[in-house]
């Protein structure tokens, strides 16, 4: 019999409907994998009972001949940035340790309503700030991948959705939610040989998702195939009147629209994404990707996004600025951690609570954000950054006059070892260099695995599309997926 935990979301969905197996069998299989993978530290909270509950409901509905939800019988992992009613939600911080929301985020509610079951809350970088999953209060997430160099260095699963990427590539769940502020879905997907899409800003409601940087945060799915991403994204997307930035548009049928035939499509290759000193293997993978898209019928054109080199600095002003304000609500008054030294007044309580509740990277970003917004510096930093952001966005608009999508690398390197970049925040920030521009412009972008590098680690490709054109992004990604034939998986060592 097939190992149920090797199946994709589409295969589980279809097999369950066909009666090949029960939803309970699937849930039990993944629950067992989760329970056996403590070494990866991918979950902060495991909820096997939730997965079984949803599975039993799906089995019952099927037996009764009721209409099944789009994700009936499919268990998934939930990034611990989504508030889940009755289940601790921490954003991987000490600050929110023990916080049990009395409400359910819009995106997770949609997934449950579609019949999905929750395997648990996935670890992440604290408040989604990080690119290696080393900032979680609940410990590092370990990538299931190892270099083929005889060493056993623990590798980063990427961040911030590192619990999601690690869990999916290790077959602890067939799919998971992620959130992407500057690359937090795409970079971990690239590091672990899976796919993930950040949709257009406004497609997925932010309601009930712990905020990092409001103008950048966007939820999206992560899974092993492009089709699975399309399936999940359809359920996660949709207008939410509770989010003022939500797009009031119908959700396209992306799965039904999947086609890897790119005839008539123009693929732009932005020259600024090939800086001097770009990792040769990354560069070579990009060239292979270009060839694959040509093979799929697309025409390749060179384009320029001249302000690309300023994207990262722009991001590291805007994101911390918004974060410094978004995280002001964690003050020890209404929920979460409270640190009350003897005889402390209110303001002392705030300072002690926040010193104890936030990790170093979160504090660093709050401090940067506070500084760039402070009197006398606001225009030089924040206003300037929002102007440059407008220029970056305009770069994309102009490029999209000449092409329908862009192909770029996802990350400047394959996964690095845990601890390798921790000492230098700046070196860590540079990981997001290829993912941040699309975030700043709110554009849909997807990471797909392209192959393994010489060390045996996955490296990925990124497709960036026009606003609202997720279909083309998915289709081009599918074309890459078919040609890459990526079927490598990490050897089980955990």
């Amino acid at each position, binding site marked *: 019999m097939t190992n149920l935990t090797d199946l994709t979301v589409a295969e589980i969905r279809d097999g369950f409907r066909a009666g090949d197996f029960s939803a309970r069998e699937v849930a039990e299989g993944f629950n067992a994998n989760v329970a056996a993978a403590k070494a990866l530290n991918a979950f902060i909270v495991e909820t096997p009972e939730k997965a079984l509950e949803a599975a039993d409901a799906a089995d019952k509905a099927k037996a009764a001949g009721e209409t099944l939800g789009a994700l009936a019988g499919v268990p998934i992992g939930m990034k611990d940035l989504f508030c889940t009613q009755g289940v601790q939600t921490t954003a991987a911080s000490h600050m929110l340790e023990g916080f049990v929301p*009395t409400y359910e985020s819009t995106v997770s509610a949609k997934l449950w309503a579609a019949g999905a079951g929750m395997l648990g809350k996935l670890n992440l970088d604290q408040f989604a700030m990080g690119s290696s999953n080393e900032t979680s209060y609940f410990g590092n997430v370990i990538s299931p991948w190892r270099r083929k160099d005889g060493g056993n260095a623990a590798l980063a699963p990427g961040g911030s959705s590192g619990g999601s990427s690690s869990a999916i590539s290790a077959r602890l769940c067939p799919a998971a939610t992620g959130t992407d502020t500057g690359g937090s879905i795409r970079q971990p997907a690239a590091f672990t040989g899976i796919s993930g899409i950040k949709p257009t800003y406004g497609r997925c409601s932010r309601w009930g998702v712990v905020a990092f940087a409001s103008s950048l945060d966007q939820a999206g799915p992560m899974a092993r195939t492009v089709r699975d991403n399309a399936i999940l994204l359809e359920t996660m997307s949709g207008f939410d009147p509770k989010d003022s930035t939500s797009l009031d548009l119908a959700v396209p049928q992306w799965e039904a629209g999947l086609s890897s035939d790119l005839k008539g499509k123009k693929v732009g290759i932005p020259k600024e994404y090939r800086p001097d000193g770009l990792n040769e293997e990354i560069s070579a993978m990009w060239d292979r990707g270009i060839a694959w898209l040509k093979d799929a019928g697309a025409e390749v054109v060179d384009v320029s996004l001249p*302000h690309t080199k300023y994207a990262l*600095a722009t991001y590291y002003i805007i994101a911390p600025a918004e974060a410094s304000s978004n995280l*002001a609500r964690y003050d020890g008054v209404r929920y979460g951690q409270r640190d009350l030294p003897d005889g402390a007044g209110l303001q*002392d309580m705030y300072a002690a609570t926040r010193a104890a509740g936030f990790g170093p990277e979160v504090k660093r970003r709050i*401090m940067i954000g506070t500084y760039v917004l402070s009197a006398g510096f606001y225009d030089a930093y924040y206003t*300037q950054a929002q102007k440059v952001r*407008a*220029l970056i966005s305009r770069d994309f608009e102009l490029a999209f006059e000449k092409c329908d999508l862009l192909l770029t690398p996802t990350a400047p390197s394959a996964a690095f070892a845990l601890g390798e970049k921790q000492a230098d925040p700046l070196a860590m920030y540079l990981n997001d260099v290829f993912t941040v521009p699309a975030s700043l412009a709110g554009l849909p972008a997807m990471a797909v695995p392209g192959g393994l590098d010489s060390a045996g680690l996955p490296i990925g490709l990124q497709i960036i599309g026009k606003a609202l054109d997720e279909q083309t992004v998915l289709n081009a990604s599918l074309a890459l997926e078919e040609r890459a034939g990526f079927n490598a998986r990490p050897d089980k060592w955990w």
Partner: protein
Amino acid sequence: MSIDLQTVKKIASLSRISVSEAEAEAMVPELNNILGWVEQLGEVDVTGVEPMTAVIPNHLRLRDDAVTDGDVRDKVLANAPQAEHGFFAVPKVIE
């Protein structure tokens, strides 16, 4: 521009994050490094460019004036570190 120890302490105070002397000292070069790097934005010519307001063109919707929420005190207070008599409790504030 570069920031000194006193500025770091001031930012920490504005951020309501207590820092020890040693922590503050360690942050000086760290924050200077990052701020020095983001200052490259100053070289971009932004003449005539309006700061970005909406990431994706979209209009601010206004909702109707109807009471649709509230009356959920138990939910509001459920996670409070200290709640008494239906209030959140904090150390006494002297105004």
